[in-house]
């Protein structure tokens, strides 16, 4: 027979005014297994708690009920008090007779409130009888983090974590970190040069002792859970020994072959052995294997000959490395929508129709034109440039329905750069709305219009075509209500910001969610903006959706602070409310596996002595399980149950109704 104690709280007059607490206690005393009852003025006060501890000890109670306020208020208090008296804290249950009874049933005769309190307390008592002692789950935390993606968001996160004294591995799939920001010329709203503010950060990341750079690398596999991830990284062969390379650039100099530069978006060529851009970090070239004649046809080898330290190895292979980390920050960024999708704008057909990012390269002093705005077809300086906004954005039919958020700003920036660089040139901007929310953003756009003379036309462009060597831009100016046509020398498309190709594959490897555009889902868009549903995995920057540099950086720092908070203790304690599988009855239907929103359930092989698999069963990973109980309801053979909310406990409560 259990020995249960029931403590009914009066909460001053808060409960006692409409609930006869004495009667509740008396009634409960009549139930089998209840060996102690009382009612008291303030259970949560120090004397109240002391009384509770005393009663447990004196009456050798093995379970207690406190009928008082909401468990959200004092469950922790009373469980701690019970623990102080040597009771397992999960043998203490709360009945809510304040928020659910006294405060909502104002009947002064106390009839309704008392009856309901008695019912609720009885239900809790019956439930308590089925309780099992539980232990908090302790998870050791590996205090090393991984950041995936070395754009500005990832760099910032890595630097902040390193600054906090923890080790970080920064994984970047390109030969250099820097991401899209490395391509930009000057940046809104302050117009500082992108390279000037980015390069120091890149170098810092390279030099910081706590940061290990894995460039030209990709995450292949992720196992484990918060505090204990095991990540397999493929380090693609650079064909250059990173340790020995001095970055002298001789090899690049001597390589006789050129191909289109991806970094320059086709506006320029690069060698087959290359660094993406001069300020690359690390400053170690890689060989573009599919284009290298040595690797493909065993001819050439010029680079290896000139390399002083002899670090070129044409036989080098990819390496798989495994890293154990406690937290992961995902900062894989964005790409631009392919412009070819909009045949009406002639991109790819008309040479001087370029993308906004290509314009950045033209305007960049380290770009293919040394910062002069020259059009790709003939190198002439364009005297009129038409900018088309919302290309692919806000276009449900052919593009994406969302607003890309940054293009209004960077287009205004482009008109400014253009007017500074080409005197007498005229820029035209076709826009639908100008979205310039942010500190000093609206002023920035107004400046482009009022001081730099950009002509803003409200309307979309319908088509772009060539006529007598000019580019004709045909659209509407909805403010005057007319069709308009402009003869331009160059057209710049502000193409939509979209998720990276392969973003979904990475998300699946990490077990994080993504939306229909393959942007990663934050746990809560307002209150948990850098967390994911998978504990221990955080997000930063444009892998979540369009944003500008300030936001990306803020998120990098936010994610880093989450990681540092996690790393501040050696282990994490978690509520033991997790599911367990009954291995004898589980028939491996995997319904629970599909149902679990956290992919917390794994398939486990049961082997015989010889090591042959005899059977499969489901297995819950305590580190991952969040205790929602969805799996329990999904299991048809009743082979999985949720600790703290077992079927037995719930049925006991229902049966006591």
């Amino acid at each position, binding site marked *: 027979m259990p020995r249960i104690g029931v403590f009914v709280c009066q909460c001053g007059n808060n409960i006692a005014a409409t609930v006869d607490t004495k009667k509740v206690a008396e009634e409960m005393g009549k139930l089998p297994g209840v060996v102690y009852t009382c009612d008291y003025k303030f259970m949560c006060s120090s004397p109240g708690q002391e009384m509770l501890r005393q009663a447990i000890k004196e009456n050798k109670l093995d379970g207690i009920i406190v009928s008082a306020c909401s468990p959200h208020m004092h469950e922790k208090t009373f469980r701690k008090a019970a623990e102080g008296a040597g009771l397992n804290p999960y043998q203490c249950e709360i009945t809510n007779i304040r928020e659910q009874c006294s405060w909502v049933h104002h009947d002064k005769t106390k009839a309704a409130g008392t009856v309901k309190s008695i019912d609720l307390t009885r239900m809790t008592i019956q439930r308590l009888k089925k309780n099992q002692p539980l232990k908090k789950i302790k998870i050791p935390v590996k205090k090393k983090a991984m950041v995936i993606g070395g754009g500005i968001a990832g760099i910032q996160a890595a630097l902040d974590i390193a600054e906090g004294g923890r080790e970080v591995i920064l994984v970047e799939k390109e030969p250099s970190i820097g991401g899209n920001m490395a391509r930009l010329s000057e940046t809104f709203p302050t117009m500082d040069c992108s390279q000037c503010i980015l390069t120091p950060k890149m170098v810092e990341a390279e030099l910081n002792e706590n940061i290990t750079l894995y460039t030209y690398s990709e995450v292949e596999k992720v196992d484990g859970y918060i505090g204990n991830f095991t990540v397999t990284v493929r380090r693609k062969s650079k064909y250059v020994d990173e340790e020995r390379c001095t970055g002298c650039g001789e090899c690049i100099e001597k390589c006789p072959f050129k191909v289109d530069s991806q970094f320059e978006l086709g506006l320029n060529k690069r060698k087959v052995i290359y660094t993406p851009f001069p300020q690359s970090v690390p400053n170690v070239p890689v060989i573009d294997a599919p284009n290298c004649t040595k690797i493909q046809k065993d001819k050439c080898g010029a680079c290896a000959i000139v390399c002083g330290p002899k670090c070129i190895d044409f036989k080098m292979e990819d390496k798989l490395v495994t890293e154990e980390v406690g937290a992961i920050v995902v900062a894989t960024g964005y790409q631009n929508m392919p412009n070819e999708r*909009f*045949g*009406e704008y002639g991109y790819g*057909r008309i040479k001087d129709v370029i993308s906004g990012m290509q314009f950045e390269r033209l305007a960049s002093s380290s770009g293919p034109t040394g910062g002069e705005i020259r059009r790709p077809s003939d190198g002439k300086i364009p005297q009129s440039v038409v900018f088309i906004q919302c290309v692919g954005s806000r276009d449900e039919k052919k593009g994406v329905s969302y607003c890309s958020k940054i293009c209004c700003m960077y287009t205004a920036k482009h008109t400014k750069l253009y007017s500074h660089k080409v005197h007498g040139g005229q820029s035209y901007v076709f826009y639908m709305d100008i979205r310039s929310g942010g500190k000093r953003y609206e002023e920035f756009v107004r400046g482009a219009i009022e001081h730099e003379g950009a002509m803003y036309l409200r309307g979309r462009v319908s088509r772009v*075509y*060539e*006529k*007598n060597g000019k580019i*004709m831009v045909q659209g509407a100016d909805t403010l005057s209500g007319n069709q308009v046509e402009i003869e331009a020398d160059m057209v710049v498309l502000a193409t939509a910001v979209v998720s990276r190709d392969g973003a979904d594959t990475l998300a699946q490897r990490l077990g994080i969610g993504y939306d229909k555009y393959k942007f990663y889902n934050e746990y809560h868009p307002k209150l948990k903006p850098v967390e994911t549903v998978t504990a221990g995995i955080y997000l930063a920057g444009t892998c979540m959706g369009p944003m500008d540099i300030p936001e990306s950086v803020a998120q990098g720092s936010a994610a880093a602070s989450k990681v540092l908070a996690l790393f501040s203790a050696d282990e994490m304690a978690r509520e033991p409310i997790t599911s367990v599988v009954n291995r004898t009855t589980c028939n491996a239907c995997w319904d629970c596996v599909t149902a679990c929103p956290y992919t917390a359930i794994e398939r486990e092989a049961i082997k015989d002595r010889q090591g042959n698999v005899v059977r499969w069963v489901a297995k819950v990973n305590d580190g991952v399980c969040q205790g929602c109980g969805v799996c329990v309801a999904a299991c048809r053979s009743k082979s999985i149950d949720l600790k703290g909310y077992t079927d037995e406990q719930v049925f006991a409560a229902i049966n006591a109704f």
Partner: protein
Amino acid sequence: MEHMKIPYYPGCTLNTVAKQFDTSAREAASIIGFEMKELSQWNCCGATFPLTPDNVIGLTAPAKVLSSARKEGDTLTTLCSVCYNVLKRTNKVIRDNKEKRNVINGFIEEEYDGSVNILHYLEVLRDKVGFDKVKGAVKRPLKGIKAATYYGCMLLRPFEDIGIDKAESPTIFEDLLRALGAEPVEFANKIECCGAHLAMNNEEVVTNLSGKVMTSAVDAGAELIVTTCPLCQFNLEKSQPRVAESDTGYTPVPVVYFTQALGLALGQDIETLGFEKNSSDIMPLLKKKGIA
């Protein structure tokens, strides 16, 4: 490829004022090695796909054509872009919209389910025959002829229903002309409208739109304009003198059906191509290029 017989819907115009479109196509087919088998029973498709979805009656005429085609095979080919557009869109409605299918079948007293595959003659050449094979059959390459391939509207739009090629940057037509030895030119208005049925009451607009098509073609260096639709053909040819009148820099060029160009390249007897039924004259160009 074994001998192919493809059910064929000529439509009313190809039976009358655009006879040369029809005959040149049939002849070319037989040279390439397939047969266009005219439907034994057909009626006018209505020449307009009703743009308002509540107009189901407008779909009955094309539905009748489709249901008789069903009895003769599982594909149906057309030449005229308008017929193609109307039949293909109607077919899609019947296939995808059960409610409308029932209403339409009730009207035409047939049980048609939308299972006929509608192919434009260009698609037959591209997908069933293959442009390579067409190229192989060329006897009289249209060498040195800069040709403007004028798509117009109905062959391409709406993309979701038609899908013959990319709506804004199609190439099927150019690819054919290239196979025939001609040099297709890229011109601005190749997918813009010629003025269509406004021919009936608004010459001004038709001249303007057709004029833009032709001037942009000629500006791009075209010496010949090739069409896929009798109405385009009519509007362009009819407007050309007026365009030349108002724009002194404009040199008129011959306008022909693509099947005429095809027949020419395949070595068909020039006399049988019906060029005399066109109101523009292709002969000087052919002479100049040493083709005739």
